[in-house]
């Protein structure tokens, strides 16, 4: 029990440590602004400079709060510097505590301000006094308390008035600006509500919520529901969603014209309340050019923390494929002969050449071959590669006129609940993760699954014989199905290694397990998430794998390390699905914060943030050429992304329920999507990507013009037999396999 108790605590601390720097940075950023404003009014940010004199006490208050924070963290040097720069008297922070400091600073100010300031300071000081009694793990909310204390201002009854004023203003502006400025509503609404709740104006908060919730976009409905259930200050402490909302800035993209309009309005009205919120909690990404239209905005918004900043998607991504290793094909001639023997003309030859030449040319967008150290190819891998190439020559070329056949693998009698499915690349094995903690592996070929013989028996066999690989297998254990026991919670994610020797499974019990498909035993349990692990995926080159879970981070592991190599932290909610880029240099993660992030395996940094989904993302798929990413979410839409430009390039509407699986055909012409609505849909990926014209402007601003061409792109809809589709797989010859569990 102690271990279990210790686990979560550790995780919390770890997480805190991870998030603290960013939080700290954010805090100091904002204080820097404030400091600049107070130190040299008029010269700093225009907004701060234009503030009326009444703003000064707040700045002072901010400084005090920051000083307290620094002091508490024993950053005495910073305290000194800050105090010196702000010109604060020494006694404002003496050991007598915050109360006396308030009195001291209050002395400087007018008597009228003093009382209100005093009340504010007591609020913040009481929070500070409380702080040390709290557990160390709760540092983060504590910081929050300090930082949010100063934002309480004026009469809460005025919040609706302020909000209404802004609303009227935005409704009155020109159409072209209205859509952009309307983006402000949601974050403002949330922050105002939270502030009301935080300061214990419960009934006012409720009234405010009821009055204005109707104005918010429908895709925020889920968050609003969470928000509405929150009506007490105490509730905020444990609510991670809100914590994120408060600590991270909501990102808006607004054209410069619209922004100026807004700023002018707020300054004219001296609407400090709103201005403060915008300053503190919103990040406005200003761009030059035409304001965006409503549809453009709607396409990109919807995530928990607004859109991605433009800088976030500026980094270069080497999305090209790695050069295929040179493999001598001694079997090639035999193969050719075999073909000829069968009486087939050698039509395959040019095709094969094209395949071969493609792999030999170095892709300019490809990362260096050694950017990420990859495992050496073993002989068996080479054999498999040869097999793959042989199969590839027999591949059917798909297209709108030539759709794939579909085989549906139904899991029958899965009373225990099928939660995850994966196929091996060569489609010879299928594995299912079940809610009863088991992993089951089936052979879908006549070849039965066999275990390796026990050590004692292995000693007896002749190691020099040619068929040693055959001899080590224990014929007695041959069966169609092997059950792997080991997890203690539902298995949510499952992934075969490319060489078919291993299987990964991630479970609610917080572990990822590596299973050997030779012995059908568990080899390693990777612990680190401590919370349910929602998904895991093997690198296409083996060795590495990625996992993501409820602790809101994705981790990169190597099979021979029991600790993660990288921790990808940044999502504001659970990481729900993880995928490796075909070149193994990048990892894509989808999250319940409704964003997709692309991480660089080399340095662990986030190189892309894609926003636009309106629900938790449950499926991701890279196109085979590595250039594009498809994502599916509970909002029943598939979105297509250009990785290089960091742009949304397509929206595929048609499904009527959550999408749980996506897969590109082997050559990338067809995208298949499987959903809870019991359908598989095929989309014309070639057309979706070819129609794309990315001019410089779009690339620069990240604005997308999506035409609604879902119906043109939809090639086919295939109903299953009342079975939700939870996995899709293209065989090497482009036959589509689908899987799901039939539950009558």
């Amino acid at each position, binding site marked *: 029990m102690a271990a279990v108790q210790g686990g979560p605590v550790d995780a919390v601390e770890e997480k805190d440590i991870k998030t603290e720097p960013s939080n700290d940075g954010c805090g100091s950023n904002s204080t820097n602004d404030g400091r600049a404003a107070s130190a040299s009014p008029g010269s700093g940010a225009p907004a701060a400079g234009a503030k009326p004199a009444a703003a000064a006490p707040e700045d002072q208050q901010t400084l005090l709060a920051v000083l307290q924070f620094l002091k508490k963290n024993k950053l005495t040097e910073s305290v000194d510097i800050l105090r010196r720069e702000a010109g604060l008297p020494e006694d404002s922070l003496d050991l007598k505590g915050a109360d006396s400091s308030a009195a001291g600073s209050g002395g400087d100010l007018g008597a009228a301000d003093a009382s209100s300031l005093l009340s504010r300071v007591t609020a913040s000081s009481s929070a500070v006094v409380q702080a040390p009694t709290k557990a160390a793990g709760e540092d983060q909310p504590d910081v929050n308390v300090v930082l949010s204390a100063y934002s309480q201002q004026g009469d809460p009854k005025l919040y609706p008035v302020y909000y209404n004023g802004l609303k009227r203003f935005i409704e009155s502006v020109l159409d072209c600006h209205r859509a952009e400025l309307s983006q402000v509503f949601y974050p403002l609404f949330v922050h105002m509500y939270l502030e009301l709740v935080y300061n214990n104006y419960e009934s006012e908060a409720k009234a405010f919520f009821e009055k204005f919730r109707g104005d918010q976009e429908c895709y925020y409905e889920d968050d609003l529901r969470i928000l509405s*259930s929150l009506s*007490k200050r105490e509730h905020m402490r444990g609510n991670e969603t809100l914590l994120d909302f408060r600590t991270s800035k909501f990102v808006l993209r607004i054209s410069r014209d619209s922004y100026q309009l807004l700023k002018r309005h707020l300054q004219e009205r001296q609407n400090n309340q709103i201005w403060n919120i915008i300053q503190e909690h919103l990040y406005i990404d200003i761009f030059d050019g035409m304001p965006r239209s409503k549809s453009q905005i709607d396409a990109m918004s919807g995530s928990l923390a607004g859109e991605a900043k433009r800088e976030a998607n500026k980094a270069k991504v080497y999305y090209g494929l790695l050069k295929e290793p040179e493999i001598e094909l001694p079997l090639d001639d035999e193969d050719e002969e075999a073909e000829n023997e069968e009486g087939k003309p050698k039509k395959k030859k040019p095709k094969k050449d094209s395949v071969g030449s493609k792999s030999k040319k170095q892709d300019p967008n490809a990362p260096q071959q050694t950017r990420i150290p990859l495992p050496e190819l073993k002989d068996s891998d080479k054999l498999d590669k040869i097999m793959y190439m042989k199969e590839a020559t027999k591949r059917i070329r798909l297209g709108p006129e030539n759709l794939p056949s579909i085989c549906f693998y139904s899991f029958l*009698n899965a009373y225990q609940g099928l939660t995850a499915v994966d196929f091996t690349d060569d489609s010879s094995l299928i594995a299912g993760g079940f809610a009863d903690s088991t992993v089951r592996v089936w052979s879908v070929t006549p070849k039965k699954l066999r275990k390796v013989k026990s050590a004692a028996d292995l000693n007896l066999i002749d190691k020099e014989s040619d068929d040693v690989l055959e001899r080590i297998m224990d014929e007695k254990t041959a069966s169609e199905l092997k059950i792997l026991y080991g997890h203690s919670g*539902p298995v949510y994610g499952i992934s075969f290694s490319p060489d078919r020797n291993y299987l990964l499974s991630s479970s609610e019990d917080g572990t990822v397990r590596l299973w050997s498909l030779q012995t059908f035993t568990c080899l390693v349990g990777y612990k680190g998430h401590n919370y349910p692990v929602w998904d895991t995926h093997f690198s296409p080159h083996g060795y590495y794998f990625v996992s993501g879970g409820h602790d809101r981070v994705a981790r990169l592991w190597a099979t021979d390390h029991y600790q993660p190599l990288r921790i990808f932290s940044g999502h504001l909610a659970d990481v729900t699905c993880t995928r490796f880029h075909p070149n193994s240099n990048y990892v894509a993660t989808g999250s319940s914060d409704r964003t997709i992030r692309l991480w660089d395996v080399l340095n662990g940094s986030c190189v892309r943030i894609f926003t636009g989904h309106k629900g938790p993302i449950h499926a991701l798929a890279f196109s085979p050429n590595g250039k594009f990413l498809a994502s599916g979410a509970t909002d029943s839409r598939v979105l297509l992304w250009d990785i290089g430009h960091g742009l949304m390039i397509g929206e595929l509407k048609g499904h009527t329920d959550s999408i749980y699986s996506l897969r590109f055909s082997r050559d990338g012409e067809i995208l298949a999507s499987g959903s809870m609505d019991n359908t598989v849909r095929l989309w014309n990926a070639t057309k979706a990507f070819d129609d794309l014209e990315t001019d410089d402007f779009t690339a620069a601003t990240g604005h997308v013009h999506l035409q609604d061409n879902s119906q043109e792109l939809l090639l*086919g*809809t295939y*109903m299953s037999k009342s079975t939700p589709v939870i996995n899709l797989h293209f065989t090497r010859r482009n036959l589509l396999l689908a899987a799901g569990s039939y539950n009558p």
Partner: protein
Amino acid sequence: MADREERRFAEVSRESVKLMAESAGVELGDDVAALLAEDVCYRLREATQSSSQFMRHAKRRKLTVEDFNRALRWSKVELLYGPCLRQAVCGYGAQDALPFCPAKEGELFFIEDRDINLVELALATNIPKGCAETMVRVNVSYLDGKGNLEPQGTVPTAVQSLSEDLLKYYQQITRAILGEDPHLMKVALLDLQSNSKIAALLPYFVYVISGVKSVSHDLEQLNRLLHMVKSLVQNPYLYLGSYVRSLVSSVMYCILEPLAASINPLNDHWTLRDYAALLLSHIFWTHGDLVSGLYHQILLSLQKVLSDPVRPLCSHYGAVVGLHALGWKAVERVLFPHLPAYWANLQAVLDDYSVSNAQVKADGHKVYGAILVAVERLLKMKALSLSQPAEGGSGGQPGSAVGGRVSSPGLSPPPEPLSEAALGIASHLQAGGAGCPWEEWTPVPLPAMYCELYSFFGDSLAVRFSTGPGFGSYPPCAPSQLADTRKEPCGPASNPDTARKMPQLTANLNISPRQDGSPRTDPPPPSLAATGPGRSLARSSSSSSSSVQRSRSSSSRPGQRSTGPSRDVFPKARFTSPQAGLPVFTFLIGGRQMGRRCQGRRPFQTAFAPTPPISSVPPRAYAHKLPVIGRVGKPVRRWACSHYSLHLPL
């Protein structure tokens, strides 16, 4: 506003919090309770929200208790409650409620943290035993590459592979049931009824049963198959699911179809129909909820048969007993409106004295008897249901009460379980009645119904009401009143329609169900298992009208000839149901009796004193006093359907 917000979530009221606190021995102030209540609500919502995440990741649409438990577990509830995770949630998923104990000394309270039997925990799975193994099957589809937009139906479930043992079991059981050895059959049926591991075999058994159509010439086999149905239905470990539909259709076949076996008048297909009808009602009341709209469909098909004059009389008979078995509501809804139309046909048959018509006429009498039984119960139950509110003190107009009651059958509890079930189904029927092709149906008030029925049956009706002008103002007849009325031999005095006065037999008795001569000795017959006291009613009606040559039936079977002018050659079985729980035993037998092989018709009039309770005078005792009529040569071991039969051979 607050209300709207509130309604969206589960709400724990402050009173509940106080109550819970009190039960734990803590006194809470109002404000504390309010705060706690609010917090509990919030935590509840929080947990619900995070539990939906577990549901999504399990790729389900249904939120389970397990999801909720997990959410609680991960939201650190375990830190509060200790390691008994499974007990963190009270309710379906939890083993039992959390025991909250005070320590002996001092004001210390703690939650008992008991030792957990790990073995029990580990083996506590909800998966029923004997299920087929989880497996993967592939179905190749869409080879043409064309899309398909229409639903594809379901995966065939029969692809379960059976274990060797199950296969053997299946063969043995079917062989035993359909074989010659009655003892073996009994054992097999018993096992079928109690075996918990045969879920995987259900489709196979259902398939076997659907073979009724191929053995319609063999009453014996039909009987056995029906018994198989009964055993399956009674097996508590089986979830019949959509197989109910198939079972019902097999049973309906036995009820309604002009079986090949009924060509030979010596075959007692009547009892088969009776038994099947009983089985049908049993399936309904125990499994009727599995398939929506089934009741409605059945009523429709019964109605169709009834209104089809081309059908043979035995089919009509089946429809009537089927309706009767489905409850008085069904009779009221279907049979009663059809009676006037049907009556003409029936009368034509009954009035035809030609020799060639003898057999048909005999059949007609059967139908007549069945209708009579059905409508009598209808009258009785309706009166009973009326009397209920009257007793409740409302004292409303009976007529209006009928209307109100029938139109909203769910409003008040029906007088007894039998009609309760019927009511439940009836309400279902009404709910789905919007788009149904039924003609507009308005409930007929009791007096009108009685008058109409009296015009058909005359004094054959055991239930008597005054039809005088003041009827409407009378309080509805309470059961005791009914009984009283019945005791007057000359009820029709108030009835102007003296021309229809007929000799009659009133049998009002209660037979011990154990004496029905059924070979199944251990388990109660399906009828009993199904509806408790209501059963005795059906039983008595059946027994009183059933073929008398079955010695177990104590009821008299007078093949009486009436002296009435209109239909003098008409046997009438009259009986009323005993009040449930009342052992009052009244026998009023009038008219002539015709014994088996009896040339003449001797009038008889017998009255039994109501005093001896049923226990002291076993029904069997009457048997020898009452003339036995009917065909001979029927195998006595046709016990199965003997009760409930209205067989009245002449």
